[in-house]
């Protein structure tokens, strides 16, 4: 080792150049793919163990929860003309995934700082892997329940593409928020406490529990400012179509989803150089 300054391009002479442009980008995506794959399998294993039922628990747990709540709601006869069980599940199941994604994001850096000693493992990868897992779990739950609904009462969703599309948007929205939360909590530890409180008090305003149609007009207008309420309406619209009038503003939702994801990406990038190990 020796001290050295000067040379071309700020680098010493004869210093190897980095791969340029496209080649570097492609290599970057390959590395990211490998890392996310490894993180996904690790997450599955650390959360659900290696036991026989291990991987099954991933969606058994939310499935049991969804069935429980759905059954409870069946007694209260909410939802008007649609099966109350389905009405409840379609609201709750995505909401739980949404909340889990946001809540778990707050400790993402702290819980994984040891793995980030491998420089290719980035905060973004950790979050994407987790979010993908939550997303696939709740998707499995919904598929199981809808298959059951088809079998028992012959119910089919009004528009499957609409359900899939709006669920994807809902997850994309949660993903963007999780990036912001993870970056914020890595920077200011205090924030973590507020995130948990927020996810609890935001439940009534999420639009997950009741359709906007069942609310007074002023309430509905106010809730429509919340992109999450719009998204839950979209899911219900895909499920029940004309059975319950749905209220949502698609361009408004899309703008939010893109906005939080871009801001989230910028935030995890900005916070990277300030992380302390």
């Amino acid at each position, binding site marked *: 080792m020796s001290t050295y300054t000067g040379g071309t391009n700020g680098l010493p002479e004869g210093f190897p150049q980095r791969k340029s442009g496209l080649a570097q980008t492609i290599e970057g995506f390959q590395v990211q793919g490998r890392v996310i794959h490894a993180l996904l399998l*690790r997450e599955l294993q650390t959360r659900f163990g290696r036991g026989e039922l291990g991987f099954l628990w991933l969606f058994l747990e939310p499935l049991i929860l969804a069935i429980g709540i759905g059954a409870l709601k069946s007694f209260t006869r909410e939802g008007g003309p649609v099966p109350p069980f389905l009405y409840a599940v379609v609201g709750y199941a995505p909401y739980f995934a949404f909340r889990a994604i946001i809540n778990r994001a707050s400790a993402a850096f702290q819980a994984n700082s*040891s793995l980030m000693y*491998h420089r290719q493992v980035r905060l973004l990868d950790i979050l994407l892997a987790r979010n993908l897992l939550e997303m696939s779990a709740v998707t499995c739950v919904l598929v199981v329940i809808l298959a059951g609904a088809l079998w028992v009462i012959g119910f089919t969703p009004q528009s499957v593409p609409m359900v899939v599309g709006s669920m994807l948007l809902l997850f994309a929205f949660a993903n963007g928020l999780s990036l912001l939360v993870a970056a914020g909590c890595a920077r200011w530890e205090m924030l973590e406490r507020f995130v948990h409180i927020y996810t609890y008090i935001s439940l009534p305003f999420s639009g997950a529990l009741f359709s906007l149609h069942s609310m007074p007009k002023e309430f509905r207008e106010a809730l429509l400012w919340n992109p999450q309420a719009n998204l839950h309406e979209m899911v219900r619209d895909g499920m029940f179509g004309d059975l319950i009038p749905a209220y949502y503003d698609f361009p408004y939702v899309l703008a939010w989803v893109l906005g939080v994801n871009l801001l989230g990406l910028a935030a995890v990038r900005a916070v990277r150089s*300030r992380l302390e*190990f």
Partner: protein
Amino acid sequence: MIYFDRVFKHYELRGGGKKHVLRNVSGIIRPGDSIGILGRNGAGKSTLVRMLAGVEHPSSGRIERRMSVSWPLAHGVGLQTTMSGSDNARFIARIYNQPFKKVLDFVENFAELGPYMAMPVRTYSVGMMGRLLLGLSFAVDFDCYLIDEVTATGDQRFVNRAQQILAEKTRGRSLVLVTHVPEHLKLYCRSAAVLNEGSLTFFEDVDEAVATYKAL
């Protein structure tokens, strides 16, 4: 090659103020270099190693890497302590794009953990964890190894084996070693540097560096 130029690093202290860890540190690590880094506790040796590895970023200045550099091999880092030794090997193999079988075989042979490979890493002793860490990193075969104290925790047999592998590995490869044991420094390194009060001073002669460090 690792090139670092005018690197500064400070941390913000709780309750205001800044702790300056590195001030204007520059240097080059070339293939085949083996450098020992000496410094008192809290001098910033581990911070420097983390920055060379690209884990932590400098407050200002630049660091460029043009060879494969290991993660900082310090106690317990880079491992998932709730997972078993072999599951950690699987994870390392995946993220460094290595065949799992190769990594596992190498680690089993090098670390000699026997049935402990199936136990969670949190049940390991400090020495066992060090063996696992070095075994994993040797299995990946980096151009440059950044070792932060883990060689010091092993028993004699492990120290000998690590020496042997590092001697093979570092031929044409690079090593940056942080240690408090001057004998290890003389064994592994051909040059040394002393980190004190934020500045890094290089010595061609290891004995001279050790003498300077002892006089601090």
